[in-house]
């Protein structure tokens, strides 16, 4: 039991601190924004320290809580990624919350609880545990999406997200129950062993199909994506930023673990389903983004498209595919948070900063921030020397190696299409000048600027020298199957 609790230490730390922040929010006080923000960030940092310590002590191959909880390198990588993404998203929230005068205590603690759910998801080796983590994350995020009670759009976002999210969870559960009913186990390793021994009746395949639908919903893949643009547009922007990287990456983590681990023997049965969804996702995400004038909606469609690229690694189904998805999610987290940071920087009470034309002429007045945004747009579009190119290179290489050349051809063509809408922002920032461009003064938001700066540097560094980072993702792979 002691060893079990020790492996759970990061989660325990985060849970306790999240509750502390929640209670601290009740205290009020003049500078509670600063105090609670610092406390939340410190909590995440502490969790990261605990994670590093525990990961160093624990044998990656061992399992805890009756084989339901793993702390293998895969889990550690994703946990670190979640903590990084959450910390950056919280840093982006600080000035934003103050500006909108909303209570920070519940906000921060909800973000931390969502992260807790994500940490559990990354470690779960049992479908029940994974589901519990997923629901903790999802429920916290539903609330966060509707956090601006006075905004109609925020309401709409939360309602849509909740209704559709609950429905998809139901579908996922139904699929799980069918898989459990036919195989008699929820444990991924046992599942893989039983499936490998043969026998795949219709109920099992129906169960896997339903599970696939549930997972595709969680990663926002076409045709289960319709909630994304509305939710991303309506939610408070830092929460949109958080949702686009955290919960999405967490959904990919369980997608990878469940499908390449537990359902690995059925790969030929689910591969075409996921591959088809990936193709549709890349096409529709990019094509729909072309016509969006609202930057948040555009980034929502862009995040749909990126889920499509990332699914390529899963379709490849190899170790290289797995590590390329992980590397891609790292790159995407950094890039997307940087891009959303810029959107947040532009938002203020007077100046929405949400339509593309609001970006006109920004390069002249804010050259550094605009250059950062240029880097993020290039990275999202996959143009070297940015991280996004290297991420796509690894992904596409894995898919080509597995022989999915047609998917890769589609992916590269679609990423060329994507450049059109990413460059609409670049065009506004750099190419519009003179009378048509009257960029607003930006409100001072030091932490937002720091996040943009850090992300910009990271995007360039990973883009020019990706070796160690790719190695990081590769080193995390011990084969998931049977583990």
């Amino acid at each position: 039991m002691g060893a079990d609790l020790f492996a759970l230490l990061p989660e325990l730390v985060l849970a306790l601190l999240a509750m502390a922040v929640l209670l601290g929010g009740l205290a009020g006080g003049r500078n509670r924004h600063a105090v609670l923000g610092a406390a939340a960030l410190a909590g995440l940092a502490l969790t990261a320290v605990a994670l590093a310590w525990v990961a160093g002590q624990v044998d990656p191959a061992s399992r805890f809580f009756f084989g339901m909880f793993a702390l293998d390198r895969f889990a550690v990588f994703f946990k670190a990624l979640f903590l990084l993404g959450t910390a950056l998203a919280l840093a982006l929230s600080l000035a934003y919350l103050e500006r909108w005068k909303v209570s920070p205590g519940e906000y921060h603690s909800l973000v931390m609880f969502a992260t807790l759910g994500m940490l559990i998801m990354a470690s779960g080796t049992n479908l029940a545990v994974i589901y519990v983590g997923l629901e903790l994350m999802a429920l916290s995020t539903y609330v966060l999406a509707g956090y601006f009670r006075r905004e109609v759009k925020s309401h709409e976002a939360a309602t849509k997200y909740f209704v559709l999210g609950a429905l998809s969870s139901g579908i996922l559960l139904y699929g799980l129950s069918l898989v459990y009913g036919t195989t008699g186990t929820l444990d991924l390793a046992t599942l893989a062993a039983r499936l490998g021994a043969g026998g795949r009746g219709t109920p099992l395949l129906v169960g896997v199909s339903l599970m696939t639908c549930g997972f595709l919903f969680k990663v926002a893949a076409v045709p289960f994506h319709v909630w994304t643009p509305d939710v991303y547009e309506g939610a408070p922007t830092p929460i949109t930023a958080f949702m686009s990287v955290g919960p999405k990456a967490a959904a990919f983590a369980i997608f990878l673990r469940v499908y390449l681990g537990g359902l690995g023997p059925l790969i030929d049965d689910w591969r075409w389903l996921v591959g088809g969804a990936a193709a549709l996702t890349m096409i529709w995400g990019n094509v729909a983004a072309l016509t969006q004038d609202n930057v948040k909606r555009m980034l929502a469609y862009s995040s749909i498209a990126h889920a499509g690229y990332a699914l390529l690694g899963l379709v490849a189904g190899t170790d290289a595919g797995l590590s390329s998805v992980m590397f891609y999610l790292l790159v995407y987290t950094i890039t997307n948070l940087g891009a959303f940071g810029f959107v947040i920087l532009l938002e203020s009470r007077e100046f929405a900063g949400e339509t593309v034309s609001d970006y006109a002429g920004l390069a002249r007045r804010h050259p550094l921030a605009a250059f950062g945004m240029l880097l993020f747009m290039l990275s999202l579009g996959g143009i070297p020397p940015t991280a996004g190119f290297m991420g796509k290179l690894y992904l596409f290489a894995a898919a080509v190696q597995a022989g999915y050349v047609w998917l890769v051809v589609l992916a590269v063509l679609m990423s060329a299409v994507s450049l059109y809408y990413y460059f609409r922002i670049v065009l506004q920032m750099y190419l519009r000048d003179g009378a048509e461009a009257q960029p607003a003064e930006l409100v001072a938001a030091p932490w937002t600027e720091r996040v943009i700066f850090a992300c910009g540097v990271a995007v360039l560094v990973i883009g020019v020298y990706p070796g160690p980072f790719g190695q990081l993702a590769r080193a995390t792979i011990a084969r998931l199957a049977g583990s």
Partner: protein
Amino acid sequence: MGFFTNLLNVICYLPLVGALLIIFVLKREQSRAIKTVATVVAGLDFAVSIPLWFLYDPAGPQFQFAYKHDWIPSVGSSYYFGVDGISVLLILLTTLLGFISVYSSFTAITHREKEYYVFLLVLQTGMLGVFMSLDFILFYVFWEVMLVPMYFLIGVWGGPRKLYAAIKFFLYTLVGSVLMLVGILALYFYNSTGLAAIGLKGLGNAPTFDVTHLFTIAPQIPHGLQFWVFLAFFVGFAIKVPMFPFHTWLPDAHVEAPTAGSVILAGVLLKMGTYGFIRFSLPLLPNATREAVPWMIALALIGIIYGALVAMAQKDVKKLVAYSSVSHLGFVMLGMFALNPQGLSGSVLQMINHGLSTGGLFLLVGILYERRHTRMISDYGGIAKVMPVYAMLFMIITMASIGLPTLNGFIGEFTILIGAFDRSTLWAVLGATGIVLGAAYMLWMYQRVFFGEITIEENKHLKDANLREQWTLIPLIVLCFWIGLYPKPFFRILEPAVTRIVQTVDASYLQAPAAPAPATAPAHAPASAPAHGPAAH
């Protein structure tokens, strides 16, 4: 170690260092200092690239001045620079035109100068990297990096339709290059693990993007794979060249780009496409290349004649020069796919020639545009009277462009035609009509702009080319005469590289040079269904 190993790095990154210097040290208002730094850096870059000409040893190993360093070891990609005779010439062309385009922009660019020179210098680093890279990933990185500054050069400082032209240029060339990436990956996996799902077995070598290694496996690459990879490369390179029918981005980009942008675009960027063919497609995919010959030659000939005819119909001088590029690049492709030493060396030399003469023409058009802010032929007429020096410079460059003996164009076109004639009389005849048409549209344009009476009032007081403007052109003119009168050193530096390529692609040609094969255009199409396409899974 030391100077030789790092020479290429210095040449490649000097402009980038200059750009960073301008960004971080100078302020937007220090216009004079920005120009000085940019000019000095670009000039210095040209100066340090000159030793390549003297130190490159044609008798030595294939790639010289090599610099190799681990980059992404896990995928087998290294930071690998090296040059052969072809790249040496193109690098020299790039640094020269880079310097000239900086120097020629002083009065043409009046707003956002700081960004302008930064982009110009970054662009130069990108282009030089393309010509030096011997690692596919590194090559691809430079190949795409360079799109961004060019996008800005067209989009910020361009003409009235700059936004359209900029994004068209960007997307058009991007679509081609992303497909090329798929081709690169296919080759990469064929060399190592193979493509599992479509049943293509790999060679089992250590995975590497090293081009020089891939050259050695070229003969083993199966037919089907060669075909698909050639097609993928073709899209990327043909758009860049641009070959007919992928040329539609070119007139837009050229016409809207500022003068220096056009010079770089015509002088260097287009060469990246032809360079791609000669460096990668030919030696890596010899079988597919041989089979593609009739198609490539057909496109080249259509480009030559179509480009010339369209150029003849233009009312805008700059557009005329732009279409003439389509025609000239058709010549380059014609020589290249003759697949013999004459054709190939003529082809590379013509790349240089086109850079010099078309670069010069764009500079000249820019000079006139700065004075009158119009490029319509009908807005001029008789200006030789008021601008005698300018008229003379224009005449020399025009003659170079249409291939008058004693000037460079003649040598290039003549060598290409020898190569083409050796393969097929028909190719040579059709190609030669391009020369005739070229003389027609250039001279007709010259006549309408420079001769006759001055009919428009504003033209009576045009200032002749000033000393700075003359000096932007004089180096080009000197080189035109040099190549025209004594091209031997150029051929000497090209010969070993060209011979190597012919050896890979068509070794039989070299073995029996005395009896050149008659027209060998194979009747069957190269698209004869490959055994296993990547689409199947």
